[in-house]
């Protein structure tokens, strides 16, 4: 139970004290400290109080006044926000509840009409101003509250998954070809949307996209969206949180939902984005290095043991147990074309001191 001091309000005195309280009450930094302090403000004002002990009471009074202000507010009804958004995306200027309840236009059409009518306009101008379709961007920005576009007509989603040790090559509904590397997953609709082709990728895949300049092909991987018109490119998501997109032919646009960056890639260019540092790098790449996996080429370039181990587990679908430690500066560079695990480990053991045993899907490496 707090005690209330019956100290007469200092504001009664027509003295300098008045202006000091005013100084607090009219100081934006003070207000911010009282209502929404951050570390810097805390430190600042505590130091200030120590430096001006005679003003402490005034400060406390000012603080009390500010904390006591209760503002009357109206809050929107739940659902209002989404209703209005629906109207906005539809481009109507007056509230138009009837439109969305209209049975003659399918929900999918009406949603698309509003939100995506800009696409044709863009492609006529031959500019690749692409709309990064919500999902990747918003999942990172919203604190768990994704926007609610109208539900699309029910389309069956196909999941193509590769376990460790597996690779897959298949054709998509539009004729585009996909090579899926080990430990990856690609999701795509049974039949593509009429305005754009969207797929979701986890892991690594190489795409040869059927050329159609009016029908953009989008790969969504983490927070990057890669849009292609008719091209071949590789998308890779590494364990250490680095995403890389390498373009072979054609043109792609890469949008980063987190940093709001947009990049246009030209053939021969690779974009690298680190989730950790949030840095994007663009540079050339070696086709054999990036696409080697597609041709059965296992390669290491100055790889640490951990990287080698992870890659071997993925490539061959095995579990590797390790006894002992590799020497500190262990770095492996090697290229292995269509070789089985035993051959690869044998060759590694020639260079580095290690012993190994293979028992079906279990490998034991001893240093």
């Amino acid at each position, binding site marked *: 139970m*707090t005690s*209330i*001091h019956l*100290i007469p*309000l*200092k*504001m009664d005195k027509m003295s300098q004290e008045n202006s000091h309280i*005013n*100084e607090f009450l*009219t*100081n*934006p*930094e003070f*207000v*911010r400290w009282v*209502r*929404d302090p*951050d570390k*810097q403000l805390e*430190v*600042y004002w505590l*130091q*200030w109080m120590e*430096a001006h002990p005679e003003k402490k009471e005034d400060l*406390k*009074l000012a603080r*009390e*006044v500010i*904390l*006591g*202000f*209760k*503002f*009357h507010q109206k*809050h*929107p009804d739940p659902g*209002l*926000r989404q209703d*209005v*958004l629906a*109207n*906005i995306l539809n*481009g*109507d*200027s*007056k*509230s138009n509840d009837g439109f969305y309840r209209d049975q003659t236009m399918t929900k999918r059409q009406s949603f698309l009409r509003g*939100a995506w009518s*800009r696409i044709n306009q863009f492609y006529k101008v031959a500019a690749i101003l*692409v*709309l990064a*379709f*919500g999902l990747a*961007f*918003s999942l990172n*920005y919203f604190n768990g509250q994704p*926007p609610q576009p109208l539900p699309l007509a029910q389309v069956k989603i196909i999941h193509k998954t590769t376990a460790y040790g597996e690779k897959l090559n298949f054709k998509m509904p539009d004729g585009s070809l996909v090579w899926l590397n080990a430990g990856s997953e690609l999701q795509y609709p049974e039949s593509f949307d009429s305005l754009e082709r969207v797929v979701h990728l986890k892991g690594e895949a190489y795409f040869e996209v059927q050329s159609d300049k009016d029908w953009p092909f989008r790969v969504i991987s983490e927070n990057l969206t890669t849009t292609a018109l008719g091209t071949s490119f590789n998308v890779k998501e590494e364990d250490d949180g680095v995403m890389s997109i390498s373009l072979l032919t054609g043109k792609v646009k890469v*949008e980063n939902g987190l940093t*709001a960056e*947009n990049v246009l890639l030209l053939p021969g260019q690779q974009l690298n984005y680190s989730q950790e540092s949030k840095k994007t790098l663009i540079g050339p790449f070696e086709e054999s290095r990036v696409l080697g996996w597609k041709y059965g080429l296992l390669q290491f370039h100055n790889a640490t043991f951990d990287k080698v181990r992870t890659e071997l587990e993925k490539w061959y679908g095995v579990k590797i147990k390790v006894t002992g430690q590799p020497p500190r500066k262990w770095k492996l560079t090697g290229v292995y074309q269509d070789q089985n695990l035993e051959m690869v480990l044998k060759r590694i053991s020639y260079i580095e001191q290690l012993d190994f045993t293979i028992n079906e899907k279990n490998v034991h490496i001893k240093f």
Partner: protein
Amino acid sequence: MKVSLPVAFDDSRKPACEVDNQNKDEAAIWESFKNGNESAFIYIYQTYFDALFTYGCQFTQNEDIVKDAIQDLFIELRKNRKRLGKTDSIKFYLYKSLKRAVIKACGQWYNRCEEFNSERTFGFSFSHEQILIERQLDEEKTKKLNKAIQLLSPRKREVIYYFYYEGLSYQQIQELMEMSHVRSARNLLYKALDFLREQIK
């Protein structure tokens, strides 16, 4: 941590360091939206809708007017995105536009409007919900303070709302309230505080 003590309270003082980083993010999101990024648009909408609604309702009791104003505002923004200016405070930008839209929709002149003189525009009161270890204001003073608040003009209540609730700078308040000088904003706040102080003597 290096900290400097202010000598005078500068009207145009920049906000704290941390806010600067936030401003950069906001500027980037706004640019992204302007360049056609639909996710950015939707993000902006979802982030600020509630605040805009609450703000709009300060000017009128008619929720439909507020809802329509917000709707029209975002339709316009989306349509004219390329022509929009830059900003590093999206909320402030939206507030400016919304205030104009709501007042226009009310169809009444701001200063003369009967509605704006009602107690409910920018209404606030004082209460000791916060558990403070030491209180300077007793029950009697609190009652007097609340009575005084009711007597404040809407414009004074508005400046108090902006300054203490929204945490806007004097410059932003000047813009929102269409004053000719930044110091006018400060003066209005002083007047409001003086008035309150007089009433609780």
